[in-house]
Each structure stands twice: as C-alpha cells, then as structure tokens.
C-alpha cells in the first residue's frame, strides 16, 4: 500500500512557527483513524525532533510516512551534527545556548523523550554535515 507522506521545511531559530509541522501531522493522524495513544506518542516524537532542528541546526526538513501498521518520522538537518551522541542521549544533558534555555527550551530531554516514545530510533548521521534521525512506531 502507498503510504501517506508529509514534508515540511523547518527554519533554524524560528520559535514563532516552531511546532507547526507536528501540529498538522497530529491532526492528520486523527483523520487517518490512528489509535489515540499512538497519536500522542508520534506527536511528541515529532515535536521534539522539530524543536531540535529549530534550536540546534542551520535548518532542516521533517518527513512523515504513515502506513496502516506503522509511522516513520524522519528529521534531517544541515548541521552542525551531534558531537557526543552518547551524552546527548542522557536526560538533562543539553548543548542548547543560554538564550534558548532562558526561553524554556533545550532542557536536555529532546533525544531521550523521542527514544522513549518510539519503537525504533536510529541516528543515521550526526557529523558536521548534519543530523538525520529515523524513528518508527509500529502498531
């Protein structure tokens, strides 16, 4: 079966429209009869990934694929990557700049929260060229 796909450009440091793509993704999941706990988990994972692009990257893309038995979320940005992936996966570890933390973001929960809400998370790339994360939720 052909999946339903959605693509969004995400701008770096654009906090006013941050979260928009996750919000549209969430509404789509409801329309597609996806069970409500899956909707919640997928929305959280998407939102955290989108916020990571806004906070840390030079800009990127969110890509969603919805199948009848799984959801794939791909966050792909243009850098600067993640220096120490193992540390970044720890709750509370944050490399967000001071001004972002002052805005209430970058609490160091992004990656752990994404991992907790999906069935499989793979960091495909995290060198200086950019970060690409592929997440899957099965149902």
């Amino acid at each position, binding site marked *: *079966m*052909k*999946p*339903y796909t959605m693509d969004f450009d995400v701008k770096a440091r654009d906090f006013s429209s941050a*979260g928009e793509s*996750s*919000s549209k993704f*969430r*509404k*789509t999941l*409801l*329309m*597609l*009869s*996806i069970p*409500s*706990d899956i*909707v*919640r988990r997928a*929305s*959280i994972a998407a*939102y955290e990934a989108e916020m990571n692009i806004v906070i840390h990257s030079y800009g990127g893309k969110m890509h969603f694929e*919805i*199948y*009848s*038995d799984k959801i794939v979320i791909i966050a792909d940005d243009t850098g600067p990557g993640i220096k120490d992936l193992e540390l970044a996966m720890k709750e509370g570890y944050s490399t967000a700049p001071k001004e972002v933390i002052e805005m209430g973001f970058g609490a160091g929960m992004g990656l752990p*929260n994404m991992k907790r809400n999906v069935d499989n998370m793979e960091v495909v790339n995290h060198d200086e060229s950019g970060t690409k994360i592929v997440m899957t939720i099965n149902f």
Partner: protein
Amino acid sequence: MYFHSVTLDKDRCKGCTNCIKRCPTEAIRVRDGKAKIIKEKCIDCGECVRVCPYHAKVVVTDDISMMENYKYKIVLPAPSLYGQFKDMTIGDILASLQSCGFDEVFEVAYAADIVSYITRNIVKTKDYKRPIISSACPAIVRLIQQRFPSLMDNILDIMPPVEVAGKIARDEAKKKTGLKDEEIGVFFVSPCAAKVTSVKNPIGIEKSYIDGVFSMRDVYSMILDKRKFVEKKIDHISSMIGVGWANAGGESYGTSLENCLFVDGIQNVIGVLEDIELGKLDDIDFFEGLACVGGCVGGPLTVANNFVARNRIMKLKEKLNKDEVTKKYIEVDFNEFMLNVKLKKSDVLNLDEDIDKAIDMMNSIDEIYKSLPGLDCGSCGSPGCRALAEDIVKGFASEYDCIFKLKDRIKILAEEINKLSIKIPPVIGSDKEVKH
C-alpha cells in the same frame, strides 16, 4: 442520537459564510442558500450564535411554561446570573427569581462550593494524571472527545455544579414534601447552549437531575419585571469561591492547587490542549478551559457585556466570605457526586475506520487541494479549500462547487465552442484544395 441546542432559524439565514469560517470544529456548511449544522461535529460552543449577523443561530431552551407540569418547582440559577444586573445584590436577584413562580431557589454557586471542596480533598488522595482537566465546560469536554482523545483520562471525574445542585435540591425536596420524583420539577437557568445540551445528552452520568433548562435571557426580563414588587430578600449561602465560578479562573482558585492554568475562548483552549498533549505543560496541576471569553459570564445566552459582568462578579465576591463549606452537605458521601459513565472518544474526524482506505482518501484530498485556488473564500459552502477537498472525497461536494474552478472550466469550454463556431463545413466553403 444527537440532540443539539444550537439550531438554525432557516427564515433568518441569508446563507452567508460568517459562521462556517468561525466554527472551531468545522461543523457548518452552506447548502441551498442556508447554513447546515453537521450534528456529529457540533459541540454546542455557541461561536456561531455570537458571530451570525442575522441572529439565525438559535439556542433551543425549554419554555418557561413547562414548570406548570410539576407540583413543586425548584429553580437553579447559574453563578453567572449574579453578574447580569446593575445594583442588585445576590439576595435581591434570588428573591426576584423565586417570585417568578418557583417554590424554591437552590444556588448552583453553592453546588460549586461543594465541587471545589470535593476537588480540594480528592486531589490529595486520588492519583490523577497531570494536568487534571476541568469537566465544568461541556463544550470543552466534547472538544476533547473529538480532537484530544488521549487527554480524556485527565478529565476530573466530579459532576459539574449544575448536576450536584440538581441532585441535592431534588433529594431534599422529596424528603421535605413527600412528593414523588416526577412531581418535582428542577429547572436550570443557563448562560449557554452547551449546558442545555449536556442536560439532554448527559456527559459522564446516566441521566441528568434537571428537568428543564431556561435561557438566562428569558429569565433576565422576568426578574426585571418582578424586582419592583419583591420586598423580602433571600439569604444566599454561596461563598466567594462558588460565586467566582462565573468568571474564568474561578474554579482554578477553588482547587487550592499550586499551579493552575485557566484559559478562555475556544481557539485559545485548542492551542493549550495541543501543548498539554505534547507533554509541554506537565508542570501544571490543574487546567481549566472555558469555551467562552471571560468564562460563563461570556455565555451566548447572557445579557450583560461579559467584561461588565465579570467586574460585577468581582465586586460581589469582595463582600463574601471565603467560606470553607462548613455546612451540612460536607458530610455527604463524595461518591454520590462522581461521574460514573466512562467518556467515549468521538470518531467524527476519521475519514474511514480502515486505515488503508483513510490513507487513500487523504492522498486524494491532497491531490484535489493542490488544484484549488487556496483562497479559503467559503463561496463553495465549505469553510476553506482544504475542507472542500475533504467534502469532495467524502462525496458531499463536487469540484465545480468552487466558483474559480467552474469559471476556468467555462472559459475552456467557451474557447472550444468559439473555435468550433468559426469552422465552415466543406460543402459550404473551404480554402483547402481537394487532393487525391
């Protein structure tokens, strides 16, 4: 079975597009020159009632004369009624209201005191998911069932003050008068459509304790008529907490929880519910969302301007005690006032229950949406281009309902007709040589 308080007065409706664009659940379409409310989607929030310039959206309430069918008549005024009158104390209002033909007045504000009291105690013992979401505004509860089903577990499972008032007043009247249940009439004076609907289609309980719901507008003029003739006052028993429920934030204040958030206006509530679902507001203990701006004082059946009414409520509150509800009702078993019917999720947003089929439909919607002008003008009768694309795929509308698509198509056909009309049949004349 759906009962809706919000309905259309066909004669008044001009078929304009004001309501379809303002409806928060996209529940209205214009068809055959008249607005049509999709009953499965409507949550009775009353936005369309406020926005219609022709007053064609009507809130159906019960006729006051229905109280004649009962031997003993009890009226339950919503706290917001207290904010409707200039220079009238709560005692004046209650006395005038009772003199409209009722045997007894029971304040919903007092029931709100009880609900606040229960809330304060129950949150200490029961392990609720945070934030706890208020169940007081029925339009918001219905919104959650439709758009935020994963938050249904967060909803506070205490009956709303109007039902608590109805239950206590009815039980006491039965004891006092010895009359049967069906001989006692309990009537609620409502500020909004959503509460009318929730009496007819109860949320979280089997059957409502209320027999009829009167519009605050109707009761308002009756009270003004009676006020000159009423000398005695009624001692009201509600505290500043219960009366405060009329305004947004009143219920939050009554919980005594440290970190409460109250939000009024349905679009604002939708935005915050999205944040709650994303787990962004897990530091909040209690969330009070109200569909109307200002809270219940902003209800579509109120008379006074909501800002003026809010101010009056604040002034009235200043004169009241911060009562701790020390009266007899506290001894009542909490369990009597809990919701006992599990809330059901609404499937109305689903394109199809089969996910594969829904995905197919979604792809078709995208395809059609791309071909539409994207003006969201509403001339097709749907709230926007995306909604039209959805309606087309569901089979409720056609591509040429869009006047721009229609115009383009006519242009192409006209050009074709024009081309054909210049053509001369060869038997009449031709510039072409005949070759063999």
